[in-house]
């Protein structure tokens, strides 16, 4: 039961991770275009932060099982 709950939470987190870029494009002020070390926040998120968070999430969710 706890494992299934953990899996469901992980699924919700993953869906949120995927929805961040489309949400950022409709936010006022274009926060996705802010640059960190020359690269926009949106690209940092899409190429590094999002996949890394998902990778950690799936490992954790499986560990709970």
């Amino acid at each position: 039961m706890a494992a299934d709950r953990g899996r469901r939470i992980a699924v919700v987190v993953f869906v949120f991770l995927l929805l961040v870029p489309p949400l950022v494009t409709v936010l006022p002020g274009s926060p996705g275009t802010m640059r960190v070390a020359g690269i926009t926040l949106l690209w940092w998120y899409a190429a590094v932060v999002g996949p890394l968070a998902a990778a950690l999430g799936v490992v954790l969710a499986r560990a709970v099982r």
Partner: protein
Amino acid sequence: MSGVRAVAAWPGPALVAGVVAAVAAGAPAGPVLVLGAAVAPLLALLQPARAAATRHPVTVAIAGLVAALVLSAHLAALADTAALVGARRWHAIVLAAALTLLVTLMPNAGRRPGLAPLIGGGALLLVLVTAGASTGLAPWGAWAAAAARPALVFSGRSPWVTDGERFLRRTTLAFDEGHRVVAVTPGTFRVVEADEGRRVVRDWRLTGGDALTLRPGDTLTAEAGSRLRFEPGKRVPGAPASGSAWADAAPRASPTRSLALLATLVLGACALVPVSARCTTAAAAIVLALSVGATSWGVYATLASPEAGLAGSPIEALLSLPRVVPPSAHGLSAGGLVAVVVVGLLALFIAAAEGLRQVVRAAAGTRWPEVWAVAMGAAALIAVISIVDPWTLLMAGLGLAGAALAAPRLAAGRGAGRRLGWPVEVLGALVGAGAFVALTVAKLPAALELLAAFPVLVAAPLGFAVVRALHATR
């Protein structure tokens, strides 16, 4: 099932090339594509455990069709690779299909599931590191340098300038400044001139060496197989206006198209990636390498060769990077690195094929062993006769998989019983597949263009709803 084997069906040549090309071209959907390609297979690993797959001829036929479409996308990518290095398309298709059938049908096939993805990923990583080192820039430094360019122009060393390159597919180029192009081989070119608000269409029959002058606002349509030479220092037609425009294109992406792309990737992954993976660490490492590696490759490619993509295939962006490496780079020549890329793509194809074979096997069991060979044969045929690019075939395969395999399966959960003498999941699969095919072939009005591009948006909810509704009626 190991994590490597679970996600092996995912990063095939068409997906890798599509992601690299989107980054290199500065496509508005680039970040969503990179994120979706990495997260979708991991999300699929979290699907709830379910009863054994429903064995039914309809499910087997749909699984076979999905496998044929996805395989044809990868074969088309390999065929484009062959065409860009000077070989014949159909030679590459037949060789890759035959070799992969041999490998996947060997008695000990599947004993070392990590070998093909390891060779494929390792080969591409070697080229990426070598090419990156030759530029002297880290990926983030290359990104900043690419974003700082005042304009994306043809370099004097570009093969499109020196010898002229060949268009792999019918391509229409939009010119933002005056440009004089030269036909390398005879061909017919359609120019649409923008003349004080009027559109004037002219067809030009050129022989080798003939030149064509285009003005700002004109478009030029080149047929597949024709070759053109461009002027050095001129803007690349169709490319972003500047490095800044390339870097900032993503926030202008349409949210609805982004969501549709994500739905296709996630549902497709749910159909192709099995649930029962034990070691998810390896799977997580693979998709992380895919996102970081493909993005870095695209950034280096656009910095070195902003015109990569003119030929009408995403593979051009993938091959542009090893082609611009100086001969002295770590003892590896450009030709040697291109060969390494070809080997890497072939290995990724074999890995993807083995993963798809497992999907077909899960649907067919041991009753129809010939389905896999038929799917590979059909894929080779589609790849030979198809005029669309690998990405279109891949999206069709993933969309059909999502609508007809994943959605009914997710709705059925641990089993939805039988109605009208048929398993409910199969009825949902029939509705999902029927809706997908109908939306794909139908001539929809312009207002419904999104549904024509992503039929899974309607087909998957229909398949899901049918299963839930029939399951509820007892």
